[in-house]
C-alpha cells in the first residue's frame, strides 16, 4: 500500500488560516490502513483545527468527509453536491488523492494534510517500511523475491557494495543490506546460481527517468 505520515499540524494550520469553510477529506484505502488519513484521522484533524480557531476567537466551519477512494472519479463525485459549501479542502489522502481532488474541483484550493512516502508493508504494529519503488520492470523473479531497487540504498543490481557490513548497510546500522537479504534468501531457496548471473544494464526509462508514467489498457477502455 501507499504509506504516508502525519504532517505537522502547524503546517496545515498555516495553509488554511485564511479560510472560513474548510473540508477535511479522508480516504478509506491505504492511508486508513497506515492510520494517517482515514475517517478517524479526519475527525482528529477537524477537531484540532476547530479548536485552534476557536481559541483565537474564530468560528471556522470545518466539515468532515471520508471517501472510499480519492483516486477514482466515481467516489470523488460523491462530494460534488456539498463542495460548494467550502472554500478549501485539506485532503489527507496520499499525493494521488490530493492531486485528483484538485483536478476535479478546479476552483478550490486543495491542501495536502499528510506527507506521502512510499509503497510499503506493515512490518509490525505502527511500523511501515518500503518495499517497492515502482521501477516499471520487476526484477523480483531473479532476486529471491527481495527487491534490489527498493531495499538497496544504491539500487545496484549485481551484489552488495563495499558498504555492506555485518548484514547492515553503511547508511545506517538500522538498515539491513538489501543484497545480504537477497543472498540469504537465495541460499535458503537453493538458488545461488541466480546470484551468479550478471544482470544487464537496467532500462530506467520505465522508472521516473522516463518522465510521468501512464498505463493504457486497451482491453479495459470504454
Amino acid at each position: 500500500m501507499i504509506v504516508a505520515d502525519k504532517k505537522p499540524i502547524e503546517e496545515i494550520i498555516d495553509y488554511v488560516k485564511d479560510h472560513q469553510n474548510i473540508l477535511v477529506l479522508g480516504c478509506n484505502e491505504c492511508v486508513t490502513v497506515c492510520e494517517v488519513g482515514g475517517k478517524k484521522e479526519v475527525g482528529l484533524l477537524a477537531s484540532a483545527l476547530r479548536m485552534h480557531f476557536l481559541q483565537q476567537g474564530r468560528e471556522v466551519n470545518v466539515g468532515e468527509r471520508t471517501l472510499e477512494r480519492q483516486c477514482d472519479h466515481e467516489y470523488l463525485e460523491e462530494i460534488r453536491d456539498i463542495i460548494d459549501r467550502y472554500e478549501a479542502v485539506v485532503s489527507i489522502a496520499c499525493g494521488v488523492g490530493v492531486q485528483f481532488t484538485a483536478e476535479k474541483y478546479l476552483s478550490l484550493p486543495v491542501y495536502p494534510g499528510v506527507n506521502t512516502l512510499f509503497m510499503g508493508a506493515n512490518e509490525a504494529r505502527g511500523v511501515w517500511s518500503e518495499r517497492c519503488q515502482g521501477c516499471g520492470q520487476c526484477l523480483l523473479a531473479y532476486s529471491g523475491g527481495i527487491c534490489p531497487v527498493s531495499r538497496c540504498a544504491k539500487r545496484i543490481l549485481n551484489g552488495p557494495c563495499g558498504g555492506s557490513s555485518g548484514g547492515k548497510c553503511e547508511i545506517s546500522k538500522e538498515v539491513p543490506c538489501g543484497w545480504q537479504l537477497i543472498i540469504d534468501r537465495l541460499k535458503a531457496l537453493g538458488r545461488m546460481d541466480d546470484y551468479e548471473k550478471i544482470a544487464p544494464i537496467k532500462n530506467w526509462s520505465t522508472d521516473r527517468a522516463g518522465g510521468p508514467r501512464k498505463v493504457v489498457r486497451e482491453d479495459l477502455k470504454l
Partner: protein
Amino acid sequence: MRLGYPSSIRIIRVPCTGKVDALHILRSFEKGADGVYLVGCREGDCHFNQGNFRAKARVEQMQKLLEAIGIGGQRLQMYNLSSSDGPMFARFAEEMHQRILDAGPSPIRTGLKKIRETRKDQDRSIQAAL
C-alpha cells in the same frame, strides 16, 4: 473511607484506559473541558496487558497536538493507580484540579466568549441601525 475530591471533576467510566480513543480526548476539549485526565491501572497491572500503555502513548501524542494548537498539553494528564487505592485517587483529583486552576480556563471557552460578545455587538449595531 469517605474521601472527598473536587466537585469540578466529572467521571466517565470506561472498561480500560486502552478504550479511551484520541478522538474522545479531543472531543472533550472541543466541548469545553478545561482539562482531561485518564486514571488507569498501574503499569504492568493491566488486565488486558497493554491497555494502560496504549492509553499512555495516546495521551503523549495528544499532549503534543494540544500544545501545537494552542490549548496547552499540560491540560491532559495520565495517572496510574491500583483500583483499590482511594486515597491516591483523591490525591490525583486534587492535583489535576490544582493544575487546571493554575492554567486557568480553557482558551476555547475564552474564544467562545469572545465570539459571543462579537455577535452581541453586531446585533446591537444592527438594532441601533434599525
